[in-house]
């Protein structure tokens, strides 16, 4: 049985990579990809935690999988929305560089 800690390390690494992508990337598309990465890091964490709920890794409880499915569903909707916004952005400004999209400020 793979210890829970390994899953958590994997999940934390994926989440950190995703966060880095969100903060450091300029392209809106890549930011959305990074967000997906972060969501999936959370999913891994959830499922791993669920499999270890009784301490055996036997998947007797599947609360984690249920939440993960919710996350996937919402992530799909979120991607659809985000891509629509990015598309409008591109149509209007001919760029998806978020540094250029800075009108809403003081």
């Amino acid at each position, binding site marked *: 049985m793979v210890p829970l800690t390994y899953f958590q390390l994997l999940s934390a690494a994926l989440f950190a990579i995703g966060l880095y992508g969100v903060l450091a990337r300029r392209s809106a598309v890549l930011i959305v990809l990074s967000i997906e990465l972060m969501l999936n890091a959370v999913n891994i964490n959830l499922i791993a935690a669920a499999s270890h709920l009784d301490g055996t890794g036997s998947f007797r409880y599947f609360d984690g999988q249920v939440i993960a499915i919710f996350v996937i569903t919402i992530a799909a909707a979120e991607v659809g929305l985000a891509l629509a916004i990015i598309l409008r952005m591109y149509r209007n400004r001919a760029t998806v560089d978020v540094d250029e*999209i800075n009108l809403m400020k003081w």
Partner: protein
Amino acid sequence: MEWAWLIPVLSFVAFPIIVLWGKRLPGGGAPLAIAAIGAGFVLFWVALLGFLAATPDAGGCLTDAINGTQTCNFQRAWFNAGLPGRPGSVALIWGMTIDPLALVMLGMVTFVALMVQVYSLGYMKGDPRFGWYYACHALFAAAMLTLVLADSFLLLYVAWELVGACSYLLIGFWHERPAAREAAKKAFIVTRLGDVGLLLGILLLWREVGSFSMTAAFEMAHSGAMSQGVATAAALLMLLGAMGKSAQFPFHVWLPDAMEGPTPVSALIHAATMVAAGVYLVARAYPIFLASGDALTVVAIVGLVTALMASTIALTATDLKRILAYSTISHLGLMMLSLGAGGYTAALFHLLAHGFAKALLFLGAGSVLHSTQQQDIRYMGGLRKAMPLTAFLFSLGALSLGGIPILAGFWSKDEVLAAVSKGLPPVFIVLALVTALLSALYLARAMFVVFFGAASEAGQHHAHAGHEAPLAMAVPMVLLGVLAAGFGLVSFNWPGSFGGIGEFLFYHEPEGFHFTWWLGILSTILAVAAFTYGYLAYVKERISLEGVRRRLAPVIRVVEGKYYIDELYQLVVDRVILVVSRFIGFFDRAVVNDVLVNGPADSVRRVGVAMRLHVTGHVYSYALVMALGAAALAILWWWRVA
């Protein structure tokens, strides 16, 4: 008699009608105003007869416990309010007191106002604001009549301010002329200085008495329930108001300037009625002045100083209307002096006689002005040929006021002198006689220079161009002339029921007709001497005035400078009032405005400026804050759990 409230109300009603529809009314609204005041005059006689016929101590009429005259009160409550624990303390009551004092004032005001309004038909003919003029006159008449009928200090104060406002409007009637505007403002502000005193006096009495009722206040003062200190304070404060209104020293400065108004206005408001309101107020509040005692001495001194000062200035003034204005101030001073001496009847008798004579003199001066367009007596002379009627009537008024026997002014001035000699130390009577002499002198000067003697070079063409007054102006002058000559008749003990004005109008006990022989003869000699001197100096030119002028040059310079009182006012305004105002203005701008009002607004703005800086517009900065926030929350949670 209970319908006497109609007397002022008629004119009050006429005012808005003339203002709103004056242009469409026949005669520009003038007939309406005249009808209102004429009806008032008729109603005065109804009230007088009703008063004389009234059964004593019945139907609202009582013998006044304090001053002994019959007094009728008619009241109607308007509303009642009260301070906590003092119910009814702010009762507002429409009410009128009809007693001999109110009645004589009522008669004088309605009569002179009627005469002046008729006179104005001729004088103001063709003026572009003819209707407004009559509207103001109607409002003034209403306010003045309310003033003399008022039975509470509150109503009196309202009327008091209203006559002041009318005076302002009418002085500044020709507001195209800067001098008229300035004079109107000056009159308004200077009298306001005194009115503050009056208001404080009324409030003091209200605090002491618990109501605005005059009767209650007088009873308290009379019975000694009011301490002497309070009575003195209240009396002196009210005297301030009276001094402002009656142009007593040092508040007299507005009256000469008020001559910028149309001459009939000067005759009505600034000679016969409104300026007499101060004398009326002191007479009305006499119980309070008597309770104080000291206040009466102050009244006498103020009156004497004013009378002397104004009569000397009148001698050197060259503007016909200003001579008359200073004469008015001087005679009002004599009335105050008489009140201060305890000569209540004498003061009011002189008020009436002076009112008629001075109104006549002003209307005469107006007639001269109307025909010559000239106000400076140095450019006048020999006008009696061109306008004999005016000359005769003006001379009649001057002789009457100057104190030539059997004319009204002689009797009234003599009563005043008798009262002064009886009630005050000898120095007062000496100075009062000097005033009487000066008064005869300046009147002689005005009369002889304008109407007699040789026409001055500049005045030559006036002597020919001048024309007699039109009928509308002549008739009022003749009627006033009759009174100026014959009003003295009311002072005698006539056989029958009328025992002279001292029987009708008195304070405390009826006074029979009295005549102090030595004073009468002395004042006659002084008056005759003054008029003879004037005749010889200005008509025959037998006496040269050059010598006098040279010897008294420094004195004359001071007098011609009107004792520099105007300059003193200017100095005080410049050095004290403006400096203080500037400081207050600075405080207002720097502290109240900049710190207290703009200060909080500024700090809110500055905080806003600082706070908006976090809105960078960069997505990653928002994301970073979000991530850091989430991390912080996570750490916090961890801590709590661990």
